[in-house]
């Protein structure tokens, strides 16, 4: 038996300049990999952001003369007759309802699905609404909700009562839209949590059992803390998409009744493409941008206290 050692392998002469050359080559490769995304970021994100900020300081009609407006577009957001304040409040209310309801439902369903023998089937079924076009689901839900629709007819045949016009009543329209949004977005977070639950380290779970942690204690003290990176990701993404809510209320209620379901992005869209005032539309977009930025930053800073990566 021949012992093979490193000494038996003939060594090449060491070039003192090699690390420097490798470093240079690495830099080139890194530059090559980074350039496409950097160019994409600049063209599709950075430049439009700067342009939108600039636009918000101008009277910029869809067609016609452009003139400098200073802060007028921002002042006008709070003028009598403007829908921005209602839109901002609605957007915050939508976010405060959608994020917790979505997280609690998806996390609990993910635990249930993970323990089921039909987990793959359930994951597919729950994910179907996510890949269904939003406008199509919104139209279908509108038909379900309307007087003599499925919900109303079922209630009438079962209990002999007619429901109020859910989308036509300012006290129920927002909640009715929230239900649709939670239903549609449910599968995405559930899939993330399911994947995270599947990846929970079995040795830690087993060790916790030996230490006497079972049931709720194990869930709250071991499993949930281990899932916090996934929960943090889901919270951030769900919150950003809730702040940008548009399609469902636009299709189902067009912002009404009154201003009960107007959102900031709807306000931006209507000001830009229905009223034809691009500068006035950019101002609420910038305010929403800053709002999301602040809330996201708070989440990033706050995560140190509750997200466990180890």
């Amino acid at each position, binding site marked *: 038996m021949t012992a093979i050692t490193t000494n038996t392998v003939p060594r090449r002469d060491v070039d003192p300049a090699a690390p420097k050359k490798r470093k240079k080559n690495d830099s080139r490769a890194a530059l090559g990999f980074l350039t496409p995304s950097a160019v994409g970021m600049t063209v599709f994100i950075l430049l439009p*952001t700067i342009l939108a900020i600039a636009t918000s300081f101008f009277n910029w009609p869809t067609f016609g003369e452009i003139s400098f407006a200073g802060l007028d577009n921002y002042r006008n957001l709070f003028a009598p007759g403007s829908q921005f304040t209602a839109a901002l409040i609605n957007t915050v209310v939508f976010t405060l309802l959608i994020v917790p309801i979505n997280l609690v439902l998806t996390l609990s369903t993910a635990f249930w699905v993970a323990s089921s023998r039909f987990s793959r089937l359930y994951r597919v079924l729950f994910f179907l609404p996510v890949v269904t076009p939003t406008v199509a689901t919104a139209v279908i839900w509108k038909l379900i909700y309307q007087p003599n629709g499925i919900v109303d007819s079922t209630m009438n045949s079962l209990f002999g009562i007619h429901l109020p016009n859910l989308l036509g009543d300012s006290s129920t329209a927002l909640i009715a839209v929230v239900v649709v949004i939670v239903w549609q977005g449910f599968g995405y977070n559930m899939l993330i949590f399911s994947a995270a639950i599947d990846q929970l380290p079995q040795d830690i779970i087993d060790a916790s059992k030996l230490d006497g942690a079972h049931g709720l204690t194990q869930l709250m003290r071991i499993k949930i803390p281990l899932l916090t990176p996934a929960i943090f990701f889901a919270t951030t993404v769900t919150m950003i998409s809730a702040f940008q809510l548009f399609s469902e209320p636009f299709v189902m209620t067009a912002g*009404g009744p009154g201003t009960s379901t107007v959102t900031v992005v709807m306000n931006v869209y209507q000001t830009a493409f229905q009223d*034809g005032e691009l500068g006035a539309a950019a101002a609420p977009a*910038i305010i929403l*941008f800053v709002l999301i930025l602040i809330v996201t930053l708070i989440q990033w800073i706050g995560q140190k206290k509750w997200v466990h990566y180890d």
Partner: protein
Amino acid sequence: MKLAKKLTAIALGGALVLGASACGASTPSGGGEGAAAGNVTLDWSFWAQGDEGNKTWKDLASQVTAKYPNITINLTTAPFADYFTKLQSQLASGTAPCIVSMQSLRLPAFAKAMTPIDGDLAKAAGFTESEWDGGALKALQNGDKQYALPYGLSTMLMYYNKDAFKAAGVDEPKDGWTTDEFVSAAEKITKATGKPAFGQTFSDLHMSAQLLAYNGAKPVSDSGELQMTDPAFESAFTWYTGLATDKKISSIPASSADVPWGEQQFVAGNVAMAVDGSWNVKSNVTDAAGFKVGVVTLPQGPDGAGTFSANSGFGISSTCKSKTEAAQAIGVLTDATSQMASANSGNQPARTAAIPAFIDGLKKDIDPKNPGYSEQVAAVTKASSAKAVPFISTSNWDKVTKLMAQQFQQAYSGKSSPQDALKNVQQSGAK
């Protein structure tokens, strides 16, 4: 690394938010191409006209090439609800078509982006004023300049379900009927069928025309100012909302997104009466869910003032590079032969000479299954046109219509007073 993560989050969030806002400059461009070579392709945008209508207009586009072999027309359509939003975006991004279809209500908002058809362009289009209905031409003028040549003239009418009237034992209405007769008929049909007889709507022309017929109220002054809180308009609107809130004879839209509620419910057979335009005289029968359709003038109140007229036509976008060719094409699309073809497919024509073709088309296609309809249409369009006044809109009319749908939902359902709803629209919609 952490900083990079934060910056990525900031940039990503910013892009997602700002994606909704529009950034565009009004750079000149045109829908006309290849002018230098003598051959031009002109883009023409139109709202969808249904299968038969779309085919008619495509055939007419080919007539342009037959007359002017150097011109090719590229027709694109969009649903009416999206058409003007799309046109705004096209104008903002410099991709507007050369030939734009324009509705009289939207002209004040779009006139700045269009070229008047006068002087050499009028000559190229072969425009002779005397051949047209004066009202039809006037509705497509802005500041006394003709911005589009009309292909049709529309008045607002009341459509009714003949079978529902018969089943409830109510006599069919006759042209010139009153609002009291209308309410009485609706009450009887509601009682007999157990469901509201009339369909309310958020559609601007439809609702406003009924208020005009009630007491002469108009939502916009003759000088183009929004006047929703005008006492006459308030009074008429209170009567209109009361059809649902007090008398319970009217079906109201399910949500603010259901702008054309009454007219859709009528065709579906869910209500027995609804206001709709004369542009649907044919389709309302062909689409009706298994019942016979009648049409009559709008019910008039003691101070009623007839009905509103509105019309649509074809104009030239200011960014078009081949304006002369566009005018020539519009000349063909609106000439006597084209109007005959359009009238034959159910459009009430703007050229007086084409009116017989309009009625003959209905006689041939509709009368066999809906007897006497062509005769009824001939009488009602004549009576309505005689008393029709052009609908004047504001330059931000799309915004006003959006506000109407949002605010009127509350008033129709009795959740807010009609006065409050009108006040809110006035406050947000007045320029």
